């Protein structure tokens, strides 16, 4: 009897599973996910207290607007119009009527509540899967009321991470060169703002020329180049304390200092005896090390996120192309072979792609290629644009574009733009003045 049973288990059950019909789903749509961002609710008392303190009528709604705007700019989400919402925000936060939200085609719902306890702002939010009818994320943040914009960004980061599977890039800042005045007598200041264009602060006075600010991927430090008495000088700036430090004077043409992934070194190119090569400087002992040694012009170095490789551009083949080498300067390999000139290579924080600027037939392109040079994709083209910088999750690039101020081709303006890896979601980044040379910070909170 046991043998018969064993026979049944061993043979009949597997046969049944083999008979299971399988259908391969290899395609889907890339339409933005419809999301309902219900206004964050607050009690009447909290509302009055916050209005007194921050001069904002309904702080909850303002935080929701930040979340909504952030999600919209990704191109991956479609925040639904608030007018279509059937359920009140405070009740939805307790227990949403999923049928109401699925009626307006929402697939995800964000609800929240804001409170003021002992002068501390407490914002609670929940993320709901409307189709599955369940809660998938719930978090609360406590901070000082002045920090309310950051709360909106952190909520977006958490929602983004839960729905896409990768870290967000909203609680970040962008440092750039703010420009004013005519092209011949341009005033250039170092400026920093939130990634959505708010909270702009100017870090230098504008009496010296500043160029190529770059964030340290490990913390909130910035390195930049400034001309002092016509001599290029590399500075370090701590954003949190405001303390500036001169790293060193570098004679001749110095370009684009950039941090190593651990933030302990700076890599840059400068010309010595008329030949431009790549050098690193240890920030602790200030020892300068020559990485490339070639009669050609080697510039724009950028480390891979693991610090093992460096990408740079060089004209050693006759035209400016992109190269990859080991971080000690060995095993130099050309990776770009397309038509045109390639420059400003920047390694993605994900490590899988290298962004670059390409000049071909009088037009500038921002593109990406894999680290072996294959799979080149040009994301955007224009008459003058360059200096791509990656968002900390490696999904979006920010760069600057120079255009004429009006339709007649008069004047000149420089603006910041962002584009995602699909190449479809290109957006103007709002800045108070003209702007160039942007650099994206890492996430302020993890």
């Amino acid at each position: 009897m046991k043998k018969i049973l064993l026979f049944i288990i061993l043979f009949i059950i597997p046969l049944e599973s083999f008979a299971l019909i399988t259908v391969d789903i290899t395609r889907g749509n890339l339409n933005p996910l419809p999301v309902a961002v219900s206004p964050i609710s607050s009690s009447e008392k909290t509302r009055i207290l916050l209005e007194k303190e921050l001069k904002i009528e309904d702080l909850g709604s303002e935080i929701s607007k930040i979340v909504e705007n952030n999600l919209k700019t990704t191109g991956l989400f479609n925040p639904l119009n608030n007018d279509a919402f059937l359920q009140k925000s405070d009740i939805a936060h307790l227990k949403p009527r999923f049928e109401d939200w699925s009626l307006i085609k929402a697939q995800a719902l964000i609800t929240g509540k804001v409170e003021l306890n002992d002068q501390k702002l407490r914002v609670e939010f929940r993320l709901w899967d409307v189709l599955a009818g369940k809660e998938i994320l719930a978090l609360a943040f406590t901070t000082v009321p002045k920090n309310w914009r950051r709360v909106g960004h952190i909520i977006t980061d958490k929602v983004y991470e839960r729905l896409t599977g990768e870290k967000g890039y909203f609680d970040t800042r962008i440092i750039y060169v703010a420009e004013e005045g005519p092209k011949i007598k341009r005033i250039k200041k170092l400026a920093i703002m939130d990634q959505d264009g708010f909270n702009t602060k100017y870090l230098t006075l504008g009496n010296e020329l500043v160029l190529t600010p770059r964030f340290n991927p490990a913390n909130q430090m910035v390195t930049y180049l400034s001309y002092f008495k016509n001599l290029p000088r590399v500075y370090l700036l701590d954003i949190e304390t405001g303390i500036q430090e001169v790293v060193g004077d570098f004679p001749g043409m110095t370009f684009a200092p950039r941090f190593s992934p651990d933030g302990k070194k700076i890599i840059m190119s400068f010309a010595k005896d008329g030949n431009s090569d790549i050098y690193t400087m240890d920030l602790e002992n200030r020892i300068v090390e020559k990485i490339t040694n070639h009669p050609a012009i080697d510039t724009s170095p950028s480390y891979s996120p693991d610090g093992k490789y460096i990408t740079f551009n060089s004209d050693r083949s006759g035209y400016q192309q992109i190269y990859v080498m080991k971080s000690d300067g060995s095993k130099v390999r050309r990776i770009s072979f397309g038509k045109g000139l390639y420059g400003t290579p920047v390694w993605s924080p994900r490590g899988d792609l290298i962004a670059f600027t390409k000049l071909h037939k009088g037009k500038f392109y921002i593109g990406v290629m894999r680290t072996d040079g294959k799979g080149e994709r040009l994301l955007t083209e224009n008459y003058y644009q360059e200096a791509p910088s990656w968002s900390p999750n490696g999904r979006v690039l920010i760069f600057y574009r120079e255009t004429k101020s009006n339709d007649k081709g008069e004047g000149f303006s420089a603006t910041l733009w962002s584009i995602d890896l699909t190449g479809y979601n290109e957006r103007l980044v709002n800045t108070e003045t003209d702007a160039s040379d942007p650099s994206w910070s890492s996430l302020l909170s993890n």
Partner: protein
Amino acid sequence: MYKNIILSSTVHFLLIIIATLSLPFLAKKPIDLPPVISVELIQITEKTNIPFAPKAKKIIEKVKKEQEKLVSEQAPPKKIKKEKPDSVPMPDEKPELIKKIEDKKQNPEKIDNEVKQVSEFEKKEMFDPNTIAALIDKSKEEMAETNIKSSKTTQSQDKNMDISGLTLSEEDALKAQIFGCWSIPLGLPYNENLLVRIKLRLKPDGSVVKTEILDHARMNKPGQGFYKVLAESALRAIQLCQPLRVPTTGYERWKDLQLNFDAKEMLEG
């Protein structure tokens, strides 16, 4: 003596000038930035996972059915209507099948065993991707064969269909429907295995009774957070699409269905 004092004061004066010029940052005002304030993250547990209201579920199903009715009124699929009267054995089969499902629900132990057996079996498959490919190929071959056979099949041969798969046109209809419902999360890493296999138990009208993610254990593995997102997107697609466009006949052969959602092709594009 007098000369030395003059010399010393001029040198000191020069030094001060050099210092003020070469250290300009000393004269600058401190940067007016708000102090960085740590944000406290609190996991809310007391209110999480509120059970899904059964009433709401019924209303959603009603609304969906109404919407689908409207669609079907606009473009009535003639073939389906014709096939219904031909499928004579179906009404007898349906009550039996429903009973079977109900029996299983009443006995939770049975379900657990079944799920465990299937999952372990599937886990072994997962270790060898070539085997999966071979299995998929096999199913495709079978499907191709049934397609040829289907032109000649009669009602008496319907029992044989239970073992074989869907015809190519049936499979295409189902695929086309799910393609439209599946929003692929774009943040997925494209150098990873992006295959999610979901086993479905369907009702004769194509609505979903039960879904099971076959590689469920992978969700909780470190570094596989994206897999959870991918699996959830696949489940959402099934929810959004149901009732699925299934053939009107041969319920026995497709009542259990496995959908292999693979995002790799789309993301590598």
